[in-house]
């Protein structure tokens, strides 16, 4: 079908497959945010960091079919990794801090994958909650390293490339966040298109079938967990670098659950869905909580119910389904 429509359509399809449009949109929206909301860059950076967390959940949940309510453990590991490197070891170079965060996230992904992937279904969900609670408690007890419930302070990232200082308005942090998001998005787009990405989708749909092809579903999920840890860890590091403080909330069940909600809102199993869900949820939360500080959670809850009832595939997933139904009707 694709080839019949001529090369221009084929080119568009090829670009879409490679996520070129997604990258352009992230950059354009990023630039727009910079100029339209210059006083809100801290919020936008927080959204960017959370988007990385939601992307990382999408890798294991959307692409591999693993149910998790404990993914903040990976995000928090990245945040504390980068924060401790700066506060205790004087590693203040932001890119090094980010890499340390990524490594810490990968390690946390390895450990929690090892635990969570022992079980399936509900038991898996419960294990994931146990993991994030244990991580939370460990960080709380190790207050010498983490600052405990007071949070980890003393994080002082230096200038990026020795040139771009982290300013009071958060401009550098914001641009750095967008650059990280674009890089991660581009790499993940390659990953989900690759043979490994295809195998992962197979694991989500039918792991027994995958075994009958001679592949190990467990090993696919394990590898994906580590990759997911890297992505979440980068998000955590970005949060540590931009806010210069790491709190226990970055390792919380609440953050885990909220980011899963964002993923469902945007659409599970799509990188676009993950990002759209994060942006919509956090903007909505920010706007509604400012407008009505008492009932904002109720309104957020109502929005979720609406989406689940009327757009069960999430905002992005349902939009795609609708547009393909429309084009089919047009061609029929």
């Amino acid at each position, binding site marked *: *079908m*694709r080839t019949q429509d001529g090369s221009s359509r084929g080119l568009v399809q090829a670009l879409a*497959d490679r996520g070129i449009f997604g990258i352009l949109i992230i950059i354009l929206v990023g630039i727009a945010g910079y100029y339209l909301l210059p006083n809100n860059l801290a919020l936008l950076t927080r959204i960017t960091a959370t988007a990385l967390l939601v992307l990382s959940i999408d890798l294991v949940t959307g692409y591999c079919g693993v149910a998790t309510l404990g993914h903040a453990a990976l995000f928090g590991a990245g945040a504390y990794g980068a924060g401790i490197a700066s506060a205790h070891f004087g590693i203040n170079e932001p890119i090094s801090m980010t890499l340390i965060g990524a490594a810490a996230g990968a390690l946390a992904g390895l450990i929690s994958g090892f635990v969570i992937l022992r079980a399936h279904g509900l038991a898996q969900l419960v294990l994931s909650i146990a993991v994030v609670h244990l991580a939370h408690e460990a960080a709380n007890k190790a207050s010498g390293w983490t600052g405990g419930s007071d949070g980890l302070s003393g994080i002082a990232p230096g200038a990026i490339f020795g040139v771009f200082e982290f300013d009071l308005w958060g401009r550098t942090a914001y641009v750095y966040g967008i650059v990280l998001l674009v890089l991660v998005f581009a790499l993940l787009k*390659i*990953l989900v*298109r*690759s*043979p*490994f*990405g*295809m*195998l992962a*989708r*197979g694991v989500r*749909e*039918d792991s*027994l*079938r995958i*075994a*009958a*092809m*001679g*592949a*190990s579903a467990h090993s*696919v999920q394990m*590898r994906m967990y580590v990759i997911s840890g890297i992505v979440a860890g980068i998000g955590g590091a970005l949060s540590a670098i931009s806010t210069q403080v790491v709190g226990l909330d970055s390792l919380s069940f609440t953050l885990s659950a909220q980011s899963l909600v964002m993923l469902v809102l945007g659409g599970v199993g799509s990188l676009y869905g993950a990002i759209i869900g994060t942006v919509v949820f956090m903007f909505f939360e920010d706007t509604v909580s400012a407008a009505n500080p008492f009932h904002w959670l109720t309104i957020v809850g109502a929005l979720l119910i609406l989406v689940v009832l009327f757009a069960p595939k999430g905002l992005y997933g349902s939009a795609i389904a609708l547009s393909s139904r429309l084009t089919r009707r047009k061609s029929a």
Partner: protein
Amino acid sequence: MSALLDVIHLKKSFGGLAVTNDVSLSLAPGDRVALIGPNGAGKTTFVNLVTGNLKPDQGRVLIGGEDVSAMKPAERVKRGLIRSFQVTRLFQDMTPEEHVAMAVLQRDGRSGRMFGHYAGKRQVMEEVGSILDLLGLSALAHLKVREIAYGQQRLLEIAVAMALRPKVLLLDEPAAGVPHSETTRIEKALDMLPAELAVLMIDHDMDLVFRFAKRVVVLAAGTVIFDGSPQAVTADQRVREAYLGSYGHAGSAA
């Protein structure tokens, strides 16, 4: 020639009921064997024991002389023991092309690659194209599995199995659920399986069995009660009692 698959004294009981009771079976290259038996004879259990999805209480399974009794299903697959499923197990949101490409990549140990796309690998695409072509699925290559007919999905099951280049192929009711008018297409597909391959087909459909198999093994109440030519099986008294007697009912239901 040595056997490709050796099943030696397999035993499996569920709660005291011997579902597989001392079954031995050997397949040589080029064999076309049908495993038949009335409902509850233990055919599916037998398949699951051979593939490693179930652990036997006793007995061994050898592939090409190598003892695989302790191996997981995926490792047996890597040694050339491939199965198809009685109820189609395909990935609903993927295309036939993706299925066969995944199988080809997996067979070559390249399914874990994290960059590139299979469509960029000419060797893979050529093989995928030829397999889909052979089974008459080329026109459907880019449709999602949920959009294609059940009979075509059965053909795709066979395509995936072929792409894995089996040495021993276990076909679990390859024509199950396919309207009778379309079973000839499945039969044609089975005719195109490589000659040196050893095939064990489990089926109810006696027409298909008699056309396909050179040898028939009859399982009843967990034991092999007949192992011989298709011509002899209908004449065998024990088979008549155990199987063909009840086949009248099974046949009308199928």
